[in-house]
């Protein structure tokens, strides 16, 4: 059961908000945010997913000296059948006990949930895997609970 330490920083929140095209000052302007209802900068609702940055073994980040399945000289840096991404994202659910703020140091405990199968005409056999992540703050209080479902397909989806 891996636990990751996720220090929440204002710059990271600003960059994340830019990436989702959200110009709301509550994500980048400390003075404007302080004058509003939240009393300071908070993170956008999908920001907890950026815990991937703090997983030292996260498989979807290239690492120096290790083969990467994306393209370089060849269409994949791994010969033969390259490793796949481990599935597509099927569902994501967040429960907010409060919204993370810069200065929070979250401990994120991730555990597997249920697994199930389904047949699909579009993509063949589908295997669904659930994952639960609990984000606790420096006082041990629950901040966010996240439940994700990933699906592995037999054939590419939307390959038309």
């Amino acid at each position, binding site marked *: 059961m891996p636990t990751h330490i996720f220090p929440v920083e204002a710059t990271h929140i600003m960059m994340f908000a830019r*990436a989702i095209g959200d110009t709301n000052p509550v994500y980048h302007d400390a003075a404007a945010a302080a004058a509003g*209802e939240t009393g300071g900068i908070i993170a956008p609702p999908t920001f907890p*997913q950026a815990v*991937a940055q703090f997983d030292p073994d996260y498989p979807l980040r290239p690492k120096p000296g290790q083969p990467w399945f994306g393209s370089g000289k060849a269409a994949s840096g791994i010969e033969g059948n390259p490793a796949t991404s481990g599935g597509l994202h099927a569902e994501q659910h967040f429960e907010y006990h409060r919204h993370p703020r810069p200065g929070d140091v979250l401990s994120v405990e991730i555990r597997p949930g249920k697994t199930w199968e389904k047949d699909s005409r579009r993509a063949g056999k589908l295997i669904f895997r659930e994952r639960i992540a609990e984000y606790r703050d420096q006082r041990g209080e629950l901040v966010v609970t996240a439940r994700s479902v990933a699906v592995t397909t037999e054939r590419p989806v939307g390959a038309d």
Partner: protein
Amino acid sequence: MALKAGNLAVGDTHRARVVENLTRTQLVQYAGASGDYNPLHTDEVYTTQKAGYRSVFAHGMLTMGLTGKMLTDYVGDGRLTRFGVRFTNQVWPGDTLDATATVAALRQEGGQHFVDLALSTVNQDGVEVISGSATARIDP
């Protein structure tokens, strides 16, 4: 500005365009911010030649993030207590997305008012790419 229970009715909707002509660069920007560098979202060569897709496509979480922008603009900052989605179709470069929240229920719990919302995000062809729900704290 937070929502007020007294001004809302079941069936009310709020709709916003959350991205127009999505670019591959925005997928790369999202990869950098989120930490998910999956070549399916960042590497056209790998995705078309090795993985068998017609193009790179958006992270589901980018589409959820774009949908979340509509949602927080509607319910106010720091008001969400729950936000969940199913990714029902892929989002491709060039897509334009409109996100809608529909009031499904208004309720009180421990003296606090909440709104339950049904969410739907569709592309320029009217195909739903996200279906979901959310709950937010609202003012009386």
